[in-house]
């Protein structure tokens, strides 16, 4: 049995009368690259963002690195907390989570890359990368800088160390953002449509960095519209629609042997637009 880095069990998320996630279960093994595809509004970003708490789930259980970080299951006990559902002020319910400080510690094992980069504009590229390792992980500054520089080299932007993000192109910004997430040495990388905000001709430079990571057996989940990337790099592809996982399998199965009509329709629509 391979080592499961992430396990999400029967996840539900309700946004004011809208079921964004409807009984979704997902696991990711160490070293695996999982691509999540699907139309906009299918719940794929919501699923990814619920891994690190940017979205708080209504029901279900999340196990990160063998540690339960959230659970609505009353039989589950984690860090002395009994699972369960908590009524929120606005009437919705939320699964029980680890207390804030422990939760923060736990999600340091995840690194996230956003569609719109979200770099800190007032910090240089190197500062963007070294800030969290120094301030959150308390790594000595020299060590953080040394590691930051090697990450800059890895993404091919060592010469931009003193530049501010405003001076960079979109593709460069995203590569810095990847380096920033990697600097925390996470066990799993989460990519939320990392190339969707980029001009088509520069998506390649970001995708090739991601491919390099996959080749180095970085564990990653990639929410993407880049079918080529999913086909070529992913070990497993998940197709989502209206808050559910419709199909899941190897890239060959998903792209050359789709079983459901929904996936067939989605794939032919993607081919037309590409």
């Amino acid at each position, binding site marked *: 049995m391979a080592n499961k880095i992430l396990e999400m069990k029967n996840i539900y998320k309700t946004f004011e009368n809208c079921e964004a996630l409807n009984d979704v279960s997902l696991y990711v093994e160490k070293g695996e690259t999982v691509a999540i595809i699907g139309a906009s509004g299918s719940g794929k970003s919501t699923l990814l963002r619920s891994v690190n708490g940017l979205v708080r789930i209504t029901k279900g259980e999340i196990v990160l690195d063998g540690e339960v970080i959230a659970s609505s299951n009353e039989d589950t006990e984690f860090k002395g907390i009994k699972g369960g559902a908590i009524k929120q002020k606005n009437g919705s319910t939320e699964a029980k989570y680890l207390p804030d400080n422990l939760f*923060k510690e736990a999600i340091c094992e995840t690194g996230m890359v*956003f569609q719109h980069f979200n770099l800190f504009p007032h910090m240089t590229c190197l500062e963007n990368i070294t800030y*969290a390792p120094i*301030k*959150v992980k308390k790594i000595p500054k020299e060590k953080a800088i040394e590691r930051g520089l090697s990450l800059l080299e890895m993404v091919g932007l060592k010469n931009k160390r003193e530049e*501010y*993000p405003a001076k960079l192109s979109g593709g460069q910004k995203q590569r810095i953002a990847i380096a920033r997430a990697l600097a*925390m040495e996470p066990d799993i990388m989460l990519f939320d449509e990392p190339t969707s905000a980029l001009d088509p001709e520069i998506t390649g430079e970001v995708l090739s960095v991601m491919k390099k990571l996959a080749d180095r057996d970085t564990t990653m989940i990639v929410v993407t519209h880049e079918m080529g990337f999913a086909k070529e790099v992913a070990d497993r592809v998940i197709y989502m629609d209206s808050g559910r996982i419709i199909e899941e399998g190897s890239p060959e199965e998903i792209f050359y042997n789709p079983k459901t009509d929904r996936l067939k329709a989605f794939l032919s629509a993607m081919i037309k637009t590409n």
Partner: protein
Amino acid sequence: MNYFSIILPSLLRGTVISISLFALTLILSLPLGIPIALGENSRIPLIRWICKAYVYIFRGTPLMLQLFFFYFFFPIYLNIRWEAFPTAVFTFVLNYAAYFAEIYRGGIKSIEVGQYEAAKSLGLSKVQTFKDIVLPQMTRIVLPPVSNEVITLVKDTALASVIALADLMKVAQGIVNRDGTLYAYLIAAGIYLIFTFIATLILNNMEKRYSRYEEVM
């Protein structure tokens, strides 16, 4: 020329008072605006309500009225005898903190959600997020409107003369009344202009320094 050298020393003494009032007001009200701005966005209704009411009252009434109010309030109701100067500082700080809070609130609002999400995903604490991510970006955004208020404050200090503070305005007024010539007003005007000129220079410099990471168009 002789007349000038006679009135100049007392005008300069008034200037020192004006500058002290100006500096103390800034030093105290600029930071005081931050907790009020945060309070206005607080999740706790009572805190939110108090901060909003505070800002509403101090921005909604004349500064001169506030000066008179506190000038008489302390001795009459609290039996505390305060000189004109501390009363003026107290009132100015409360008044300007309300204006700064409003400016800060807008600045905090203009920080993109993505910045908070990035901070959260990197495991930053709330304090770290505010101090190292929000505050520096906010500073750049609020600097122009804050500069405006600072220039206004230079001139507003003259209002303190209504509670008999011997500031530049009050001294000039006294000389004019005594001697029946307007020279003292002219000199005072010149001093205020130099004052605002220096303040503008410093603020422009700060704006330049804080916008170094801005987009180059």
